[in-house]
């Protein structure tokens, strides 16, 4: 999986007008949304930056993170994206808005895989298809360097909306693994609902080990994972979406804590899970 030339950009320069509070500083499960977004991207991308306005560089929510300060005229997400291309012109950017509390690492690899399979030659971005209206979601998307000059022209002509930009210029669209995954929060009511929903989401740490074909497709032999999956069956759906496993669940067995297990067993915190592809000893 060629993930190296993709950097991450968390957009945190917004005015948060309807929220009347800085959306980057809203807390979910004890962390600010900016920290959560930055941490998830940092686990999978080689470099991640926070996009800020010039007057935000000493803001305590942002100051401790690597920043890209707006360097082109105007305001809005397109300015942040263009400033990122100005700072590092030859990389693709995984652009992520700061008001998506349900964003998780499960949303990184489907885009990366689509980019590897499809290439960016024919579209300026790889984006999710909105579960609400089928339109591109520009602020959880991989933007290609070829988009930079086109964005400059679009902005010069008065354009401000990255979604309209992608509708006009074409994005390769990918289905969302979970229709709610990109629900955003704009109002205090939406924030309290999202925070409560994330608090209720019982998540736990599991240890996953990978062998043989699974190890090659996951690109690792083990990992510790924070997940809301409650059974091996759910966990396999989550990991298959992330890593693109070619084997279907029916072809596998599963072991929990070094013993064969049922797929519907209730997992407990710190369980060690191994998916067992068809064996071939002897």
């Amino acid at each position, binding site marked *: 999986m060629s993930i190296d030339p993709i950097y991450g950009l968390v957009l945190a320069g917004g005015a948060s007008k309807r929220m009347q509070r800085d959306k980057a500083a809203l807390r979910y499960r004890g962390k600010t949304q900016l920290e959560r977004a930055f941490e998830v991207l940092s686990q999978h991308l080689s470099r991640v930056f926070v996009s800020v306005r010039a007057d935000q560089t000493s803001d305590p929510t942002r100051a401790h993170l690597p920043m890209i300060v707006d360097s082109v005229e105007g305001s809005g997400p397109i300015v942040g994206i263009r400033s990122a291309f100005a700072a590092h012109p030859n990389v693709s950017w995984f652009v992520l808005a700061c008001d998506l509390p349900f964003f998780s690492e499960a949303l990184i690899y489907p885009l990366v895989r689509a980019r590897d399979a499809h290439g960016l030659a024919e579209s300026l971005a790889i984006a999710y298809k909105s579960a609400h209206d089928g339109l591109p979601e520009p602020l959880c998307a991989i933007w290609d360097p070829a988009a930079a000059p086109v964005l400059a022209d679009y902005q010069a002509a008065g354009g401000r909306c990255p979604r309209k930009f992608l509708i006009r210029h074409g994005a390769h669209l990918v289905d969302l693994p979970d229709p709610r995954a990109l629900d955003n929060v704009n109002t205090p009511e939406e924030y309290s609902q999202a925070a409560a929903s994330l608090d209720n989401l019982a998540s736990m740490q599991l240890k996953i080990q990978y*062998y043989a*074909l699974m190890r090659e497709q996951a690109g690792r032999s083990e990992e510790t994972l924070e997940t809301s999956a409650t059974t091996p069956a759910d966990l396999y759906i989550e990991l298959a979406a992330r890593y693109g496993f070619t084997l279907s669940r*029916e072809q596998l067995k599963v072991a929990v804590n070094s013993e064969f297990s049922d797929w519907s067993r209730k997992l407990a915190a710190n369980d060690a899970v*191994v998916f067992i*592809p*068809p*064996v*071939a000893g002897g």
Partner: protein
Amino acid sequence: MSFRFTQTAIDTAAARRELQDLGSGGYVCFEGWVRDQNEGQEVTRLEYEAFQELAVKEGERIVAEALRRFPVKHALCIHRVGSLGLGDMAVWVGVSSAHRGEAFDACRFIIDEVKHRVPIWKKEHYRSGNSGWVNCERCAAEPQHSHEHPHRVASNP
């Protein structure tokens, strides 16, 4: 330990000594070797990998089952992991017994069950430069394939 792994060549003389018993009238062994072709492809080497913690438990269960099913004295299975060349021994099964019939039966039972049940995988490297995990790459194209029956189609050795 009635089932174990080794990273280096299997010492069959030492393994055979573990089975010796004055009450045994003989012993049967099976050696699995790395073959130079599989399914029409020229094989150059194999890599074996195991989920050892579970594999040893399952392997010991298989040997215990064999000792219950057949009136034999001792049984042992040793499987190699790592990179193996053509002709190398990948697996050894030995059974000692008062009489030969049950020794053959128990030996056959153990190797068949080990191939079917123990979490061990092998990756074949071909003369063409390609490689593939045996029983996995083929299954990926046949999603109806399941574990309900043994994977014996592409067994090597």
